């Protein structure tokens, strides 16, 4: 495990590779210049090597989304780093009334090939405005692509694919993920779990502890919740002999439902797990669609695991209580699987 590079290094290397292989890409955002190299160091070393292609900006998120859109309309491929995912709120006019709409409202005469990279997630004590998982707010914006990275996905491939994509892509990163190893499956296994990966542009990973011979439930998750869900799934196997499949999506919008439907056909139950708030969350959309598509397979209603609807407090214990943990996932599986744990 120690041989695997940390996620931040993989993303940093992918950015360097993109700069080496494309001349139409510019990285812009706040505090990107070396020696600082961005708040989470993803752009470290880039401005030293490519000073003309790393543009450090004023604190102007409301406009920066539009600046990136304008560049994309004119044939560039900007990568916009938003320092904290919470700050996408400042850019919503540009996201809703520009970036997502230009292509269709201008009758497919234009494309907006930009990438927004931004870290979401809590568990670092940053408090209410620097800890949120706001990707659910993007789920209601047709015309954009929302991709969640995780520590088990091929992060290099996700970033390269996002830059190659002619659509606007919001690449959701995670603050805790950066410092962790990019734990890729080897030979179809991650530790003791079998893993299959879809051959789509933004793949989904499906994990099984029972060689895809069915199980008690399918847990659908993404991003920073994946390691928590994998821990819960492992505990369910080891402590309770309850086997689940875990589907780790990367493409959230348009929602990549097929691997979920396929897994639910094997397990007959579904739990969604996300770090964002419950109401109007990603899990709500997944639950609605799974119940439309897989009603005949479901033994019980879909259960959602999510953060509570409220602020994410700064104090460690309060934050832990607000955000979903291993216990919440286990309880939800027990509920849909009808087992006592």
């Amino acid at each position: 495990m120690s041989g695997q590079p940390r996620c931040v290094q993989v993303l940093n290397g992918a950015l360097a590779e993109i700069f080496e292989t494309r001349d139409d890409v510019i990285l812009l955002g706040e505090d990107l210049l070396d020696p600082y190299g961005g708040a989470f160091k993803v752009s470290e070393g880039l401005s030293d090597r490519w000073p003309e292609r790393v543009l450090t900006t004023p604190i102007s998120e409301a406009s920066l989304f539009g600046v990136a859109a304008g560049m994309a309309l004119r044939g560039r491929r900007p990568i916009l780093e938003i320092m904290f995912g919470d700050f996408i709120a400042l850019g919503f006019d540009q996201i809703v009334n520009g970036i997502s709409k230009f292509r269709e409202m201008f009758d497919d005469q234009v494309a907006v090939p930009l990438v927004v990279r931004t870290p979401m997630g809590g568990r670092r004590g940053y408090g209410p405005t620097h800890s949120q998982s706001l990707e659910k707010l993007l789920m209601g914006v047709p015309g954009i692509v929302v991709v969640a990275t995780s520590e088990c996905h091929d992060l290099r491939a996700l970033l390269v694919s996002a830059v190659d994509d002619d659509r606007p892509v919001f690449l959701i990163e995670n603050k805790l993920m950066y410092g962790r190893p990019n734990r890729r499956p080897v030979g179809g296994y991650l530790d003791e779990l079998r893993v299959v990966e879809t051959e789509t542009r933004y793949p989904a990973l499906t994990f099984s502890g029972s060689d895809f011979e069915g199980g008690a439930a399918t847990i659908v998750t993404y991003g920073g919740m994946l390691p928590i869900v994998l821990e819960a799934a492992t505990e369910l196997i080891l402590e309770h002999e309850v086997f689940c499949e875990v589907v780790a999506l990367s493409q959230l919008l348009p929602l990549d439902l097929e691997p979920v439907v396929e897994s639910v056909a094997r397990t007959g139950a579904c739990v969604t797990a996300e770090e964002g708030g419950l109401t109007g969350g990603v899990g709500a959309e997944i639950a609605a669609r799974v119940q439309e598509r897989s009603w005949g397979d479901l033994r019980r209603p879909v259960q959602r695991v999510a953060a509570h609807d409220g602020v994410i407090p700064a104090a460690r214990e309060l934050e832990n209580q607000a955000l979903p943990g291993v216990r919440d996932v286990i309880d939800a599986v027990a509920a849909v699987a009808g087992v006592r744990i």
Partner: protein
Amino acid sequence: MTLLERQYEQMLTIRRFEETLLRLFSEGKLTGTTHTYIGQEADAVGVIAHLDPERDVVFSNHRCHGHYIAFTGDLFGLLSEVMGRSTGTCGGKGGSQHLHRGNFYSNGVQGSIVPVSTGIALAEKEKGTGAVTTVFVGDGTLGQGALYECLNMASLWSLPLLVVVENNHYAQTTPRHLAVAGDIRARGAAFGIETDELDSTDVEEIHSAAQRAVDHVRTTGRPFFLVLHTYRFSPHSKGDDFRDPEEIAQRRAHDPLLVAGARLDGDVRARIDEAVERLIAETVEAAEAAPVAGA
């Protein structure tokens, strides 16, 4: 055709086009909304004469028909777009406020267009095209914070961006004194941007001021902030005019068509008038015959 004759013809084309839209609305042949440019024609014609549609970029706002016509000359695409025909500039998806053709763009949210224009100017600078990007905003947009973020960035990064503020003194129904504090021109100057200001409906004066502004952007690669004080004679949209009729009448005495028309030979002017009437009538006929989008 002399420059003045062409300017008069363009202004008249915009005027008749917009009047025709209002007529079509009253006849129930148009739905949705429109924001006519009646009274402000000299701004579009004076500024856009200095831009090259093959190279330069224009980004306009909700009141975009005058800019679109001056930049593209595409009456049929615009009218059929507004009339919801599949032959429209955007196939009927955009309607009056959301236009794109070639290097022309417009969008309907106040302040939203300035960031995008800033990005366009940045891209064109990187590509080394020499393009001037011109964004048209109104006095109402001076209330949007994104404008000031962009003035800051355009100056910091030396972007070839021309910001034209058309101050028609009303943000929809709200008079300027209830919405805009301080000096308009000083807003550009505060960011270290070259500025100019003109209170005129004389297309020749506006043409000269715009020449200096565009030349500045073209030669220095730096932004320019041009304030044009103007007036619209018609409502913001339709049926939302609460201004003093006396005030409007006073302004109409300085109608840009009267100012320019008085300098033309009578026969020449009559020929232009007739040609424009014919062009508009033909455009209406063609657009009405075009297939309805989505039908």
